[in-house]
């Protein structure tokens, strides 16, 4: 695996975790509104 791929993969994990958390909050909000 090349250095660029490892760096890009790490960025994907960071953005995935951050925006994944935003999606999780959206789901919690919908559940609480029911």
């Amino acid at each position, binding site marked *: 695996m090349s250095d*660029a791929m490892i760096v890009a993969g790490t960025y994907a994990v*960071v*953005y995935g975790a*951050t925006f994944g958390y935003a999606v999780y*909050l*959206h789901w919690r909000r919908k559940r609480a509104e029911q």
Partner: protein
Amino acid sequence: MRRVQIIFLVATAAVAYGAYLAFTAPLDALQGEFTRMIYIHVPTLWLAFLAFGVTALGSIAYLITRKPRWDRLAASSAEIGVLFSVVGVFTGMVWGQAVWGQAWDWGDARLATTAVMIFVYLGYLALRHSIADPEVRAKRAAILGAIAVIQVPLVYFSVNLVRTLHQTQSIRPDGSTMPTEILVALLVNVGAFTLLYIALMMARMHVAVLEEIRIGATVVAGDAVAPPRLSDVKDV
């Protein structure tokens, strides 16, 4: 469109611009592609420090005023702080493996203090989940939240107190050790992640309010049963 959605969209655009700068900024001669790790490693851990600082402020404000909104602020910020500190440590491990030849070293002061900080804030979240009474939970969590923040300066200055594997700060009061292009890209990413923190905090606090309303509306079995009062018992 709600205010939180607007801030989230602005934050997403800023993060996208930060990513563009990160992948077009010049590379360090020794680290090569891994130079780009700085643009996510520093902002995520900066956010963790900011979030735990806000948790402490919310905790102190709750202990003084006893208003639930300060407890919500502290709890929301701690949750986001744990997320960003775990993500930040992950980026540091990938970076460390590439440039140090090892992902983790318990002998390093910065790494060890960061791990302890994460464990303590995981404990803070566990404490909150273990107490059902909202007032008792808020009070005990506020005491821990106000004390636990001491770890933030401890982690930050650990590289100055004990010189081991991790480098010292690149941005100091007397200037930066980085070229301007790298510094600008780093500051843009720090700003973008800070906007993201604000958006996530607004969303998380809104969820906390909704969940409190929902729990308040739930009838718990046994709620209507009053405990016997000894003052009502007459001597026979």
